[in-house]
């Protein structure tokens, strides 16, 4: 059980770099840079290792958010004291600016993962129910902005009705403070007719967009 993720000491340079990398990908992927890639190489992590770790951290960001949205129970008994969620913990900081450019590491270096991600992305963004395609695009663009993904243009031109503001508020909580998800998070959209299926679609669209943007931002940032 990890009580304090900031105090994890693995005693192994390669494992310690993985702790640092996962931490940065989860919190602020845009802060990675060429120096991190160089340090990782010196610790025995090559580019394939880095791509693997970044993709894993991005995927688990989605699983964590969906687990929080649904409140899924544990599958097994835990003998240790489980740390408690701290709802007062500050939300993650949004990116101060968006990154553009080429990835330092080609995500196609894991072909099966790249195909699976493309299939996932197509499913999330190429359909019209329960959310409309426009709503999906809006959410993806907001998430990209919060994560510093300059590969998707800013959403300002599309934000023009009160329902969008409610969608934005839920997408923001999913992206920046998923541990605070609860009925208060869903109530405003329920009040305008969103049922659980539609609310889940909002959560899944935002958290899926987070996977794709987090991966892209981290890989682009490593080139700077």
């Amino acid at each position: 059980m990890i009580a304090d993720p900031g105090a994890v000491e693995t005693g192994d340079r390669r494992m310690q770099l993985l702790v640092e990398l996962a931490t940065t990908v989860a919190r602020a992927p845009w802060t990675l840079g060429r120096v991190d890639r160089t340090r990782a190489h010196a610790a025995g992590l090559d580019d394939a290792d880095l791509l693997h770790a970044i993709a894993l951290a991005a995927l688990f960001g989605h699983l964590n958010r969906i687990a929080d949205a649904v409140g899924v129970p544990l599958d097994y008994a835990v003998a240790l004291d489980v740390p408690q969620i701290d709802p007062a913990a500050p939300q993650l900081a949004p990116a101060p600016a968006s990154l553009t450019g080429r990835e330092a590491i080609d995500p196609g270096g894991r072909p099966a993962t790249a195909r699976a991600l493309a299939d996932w992305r197509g499913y999330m963004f190429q359909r019209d129910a329960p959310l409309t395609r426009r709503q999906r695009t809006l959410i993806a663009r907001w998430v990209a902005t919060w994560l510093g993904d300059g590969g998707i243009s800013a959403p300002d031109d599309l934000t023009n009705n009160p329902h969008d503001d409610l969608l934005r508020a839920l997408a923001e909580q999913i992206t920046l403070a998923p541990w605070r998800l609860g009925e208060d998070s869903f109530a405003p959209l329920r009040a305008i007719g969103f049922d659980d299926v539609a609310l889940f679609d909002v959560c899944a669209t935002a958290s899926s967009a987070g996977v794709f943007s987090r991966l892209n931002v981290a890989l682009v940032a490593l080139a700077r």
Partner: protein
Amino acid sequence: MALAIVDPAGDPALRAIYTAMRERPLPPAYRTPHGGVPGIIAAHSLDPQLIPRVFGCSTTLNGAGPLSWPERELVNAITSRLNQCFY
């Protein structure tokens, strides 16, 4: 109240997806003591078609290297802890 988990008993499509997920080759450590699908799969039950997409991707990342199994679990655990997710 969090979002619902759909009972597969009343949803043949979801039940078929759960069956396919249970039949995936998995290390024993990932099999649940209750014999059903893991809760994180059931957490996606409101959108059954998303399940094979997400967990297909997961299989490509958690089922093979180059990172070793302990290294993969370390990344997953650190990420979950930072997101305050204790599932």
